């Protein structure tokens, strides 16, 4: 009967109590946790081998992260809508091979054309994914698993065992990866822009919040009048386009492109997103969290090399991290749920 008195009293009392504050903080710790893990890892490795903190080492880590982070941004957006895009590795390969072939045949094309071409190839591939998911009413896992093989198959049949070598590519294309703007490599700069824009879109714009809403409750999103079809296609096109962009960056960074480029990348990308705190069932997580996840995975890889630990351990560690991330999410969700319920335990 306390209900009556609580409820009918005018609510002049300041809203928000400790239980809620704690719940809010717990949510924020998700990204903080990754930063912390990263700091510990870097500190431990640097003590063992100070060269780990040298300019070149940091630069390598950031360059290696850049491509993964660009793809993780698109993947995060798709996963937030309660879908998944497994075709990104193949899209990267297709885009990389397309752009490399194009550049080797037209040595004078400026870099921006290469980037646009990569984006376009990826966007078309992503659109096909989105259309199949939305209008074919097939789960994204199945659709993108299918297109993973289709896009890879197209690249293979086109390349037919040939590869584009670094010496066939124009110089300005190859140096792009290492050129700096204000001391920051272009590759890293592009990744920062992509991650920043993605975070801003998801956090502060209506369309971003609608994507969260769609992932949080697909049925309610339809009833709320959200343009679910448009948004969903948009998410897949974005993920595809960013994978296409990643393909251009890949070609520019490594110079040698064959049909197997980006093979298996999709799992790294999904791992980065999950470790970065994006819930696999949609609705929560952030783009910059996913980017941090990409950074963490990359740093783990290079730290293991520096610490002279068998590279095979890397995969096991990544796997353990994924499970840890999901367990942590569950635990936090249950805790928050309980503390919120306790507060409302009047019914």
């Amino acid at each position, binding site marked *: 009967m306390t209900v009556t008195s609580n409820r009918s009293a005018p609510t002049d009392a300041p809203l928000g109590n400790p239980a809620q504050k704690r719940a*809010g903080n717990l949510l924020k710790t998700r990204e903080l946790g990754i930063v912390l893990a990263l700091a510990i890892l870097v500190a431990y490795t640097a003590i063992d081998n100070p060269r780990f903190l040298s300019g070149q080492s940091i630069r390598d880590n950031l360059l290696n992260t850049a491509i993964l982070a660009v793809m993780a941004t698109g993947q995060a957006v798709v996963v937030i809508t309660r879908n998944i895009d497994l075709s990104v590795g193949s899209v990267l390969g297709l885009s990389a091979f397309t752009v490399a072939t194009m550049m080797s045949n037209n040595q004078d094309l400026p870099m921006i054309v290469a980037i646009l071409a990569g984006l376009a190839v990826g966007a078309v591939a992503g659109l096909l994914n989105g259309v199949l998911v939305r209008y074919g009413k097939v789960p994204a896992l199945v659709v993108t698993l299918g297109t993973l093989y289709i896009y890879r198959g197209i690249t293979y049949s086109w390349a037919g065992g040939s590869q584009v070598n670094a010496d066939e590519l124009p110089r300005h294309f190859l140096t792009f990866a290492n050129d700096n703007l204000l001391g920051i490599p272009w590759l890293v700069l592009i990744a920062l822009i992509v991650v920043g824009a993605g975070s801003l879109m998801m956090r502060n714009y209506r369309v971003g919040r609608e994507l969260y809403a769609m992932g949080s409750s697909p049925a309610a*999103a339809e009833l*709320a*009048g*959200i343009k679910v079809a448009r948004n969903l296609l948009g998410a897949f096109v974005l993920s595809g386009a960013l994978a296409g962009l990643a393909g251009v960056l890949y070609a520019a960074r490594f110079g040698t492109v064959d049909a197997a480029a980006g093979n298996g990348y999709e799992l790294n990308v999904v791992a980065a997103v999950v470790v970065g705190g994006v819930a696999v069932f949609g*609705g929560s997580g952030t783009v910059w969290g996913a980017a941090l996840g990409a950074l963490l995975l990359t740093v783990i890889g290079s730290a293991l090399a520096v610490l002279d630990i068998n590279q095979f351990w890397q995969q096991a560690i990544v796997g353990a991290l994924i499970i840890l991330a999901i367990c942590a999410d569950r635990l936090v969700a249950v805790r928050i749920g309980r503390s919120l319920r306790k507060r*409302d335990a009047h019914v």
Partner: protein
Amino acid sequence: MAEANARPENRPAQNSQIKNDPTTDHSPGPATNETTQDKAAPPTREKAAQDSAAPDKQAAQEQQDNVAQEKAAPPAPDETTKPASTRPTQATTGTAKRDNKNHEPARLEVRNVSKSFGAVAAVQGVSFPLHPGEAHALVGENGAGKSTIVKMLAGVHRPDTGTLRVDGSDVDFSGPADAKAAGIAVIYQEPTLFPDLSVAENIAMGNQPLTRLRQIDRKQMHANAERLFRRLGVPLDPTRPARGLSIADQQLVEIAKALSAEARVLIMDEPTAALSAVEVERLFAVVRSLRDEGAAIMFISHRFEEITALCQRVTIMRDGRHVATEMVADLSVDDMIRRMVGRDLSALFPKQEVEPGEVVLEVEGLSREGVFRDISFSVRAGEIVALAGLVGAGRSEVMQAVFGVDPYDSGTVKVHGRRLKRNEPRAAMAAGMALVPEDRRQQGLVMDLSIERNVTLPRARKLARLGLLFGGTEREAAETWTRRLQTKLGRLSDAVGTLSGGNQQKVVLAKWLATGPKLLIVDEPTRGIDVGTKAEVHRLMSSLAADGLAVVMVSSELPEVLGMADRIIVLREGRVTAELTRGEATEESVMYAAMGQEVAV
């Protein structure tokens, strides 16, 4: 129809306005201006309804006064005239009487609408108006087509034939966004919130205040939500996620959503099914104030006392067809029920007298820390024992412990004199117990499985031959029971989720009755079920008891408890406060015991 043809130039304009761009701005401005023009020609059906209503105006007034007094709500006698006066744009202001109000074009009108799903005609030729400042009840048995109407008004389904008109112009909703843009807000039976988003975001979704850079203005958004909550009188924090809110709070957030969209038509599909009396009263206060501000309300409920307390007009549907639209004051509850079911329900609670047999269930000193304490009772064969009490008194928890779903700390549960192991539903089932849970969606049924599979689930093992299930035996068993319970269904192979609520409940019952239990525990057997089905469920329980089944019923509905039970055990805060026989029990004595007062009889 004639008037629609007379002014065809009006409609396309209205249509395009509504369809224009729902995401940016749906101020209803232009639409309301048009209402004055349309006043001249009210549809004929409506005229008839209002003619029949006129002579009884006095009675209506009295009835409403009574209601107002009962509910002790301040806006009493002038309630009927008020809505018109709150619309100053109307020429009728000042001298407004209820008759005049009816000359206004309906804010929303359903005109001769039909909708079929495959071969099933869900709605056939239904028409009714929703007037501004009026609450309109839509009643009918489960499966009568109410939810289909709601979904058409919400823009989820498109009518096959017939039209919807908003402020006198035809509209064609291509999706929920269009309906929203036309000022229609829908509150569904099950709340449709986004659990991961903050409450404020839930309210503002699609309509968020923006800064100059078209970013979401969070500060403004939270301030808006806080203002709405203050108006509703709920202490909710706008920044908390919607996950973990109680059903009642979720409904309030839905109301806040409707308020923030400045909805001019509010449609509520059984919003009170999961609410306690206090929460219902709070909800009604809000709805009344919305109504008095000129919103048109459509209200669906199976509780007639709510309809008479809130609504002025009622539309009755039966089997997808329109039966009548009348003033609530002109109809008695019996009239409504008769028209809903198309037959007399003389015996609402047909409890047969049965000589109780041997003791089937014996519960002694059952306790669980913090939940219930020292619960003892017994149930004989042929007896219906009701567990009554307020929501949260621990009734369901006791029965779940008895059935072995939940653990208990001390005490014993005996069936036919044999002690049951605690916390083992399997043992309870083997001993002949069956539990029909309160939440049939989550605990009672597997929604995606077929009806027959659901019915035979608990004894799939018994039906299996060599460990394999064959369709034939399954179907046979399912058919026997669904027929005996008069379940309305298409095919036994359809998914249970496609059935209406009442029929789902019958499938749950069929599922457990098919196991041939000695003791049946039913938790809120008729929650969210229409009157006709309710009576069937009651009759069924009564006949089962007459056949020697022992029944334990947990129920929050006093009439049901008093009508059905041979004995009533009243719980309060986890303790037995009274055990009353059928003769001793009255509404007062049960309520007193449930509230912890002395029984004053």
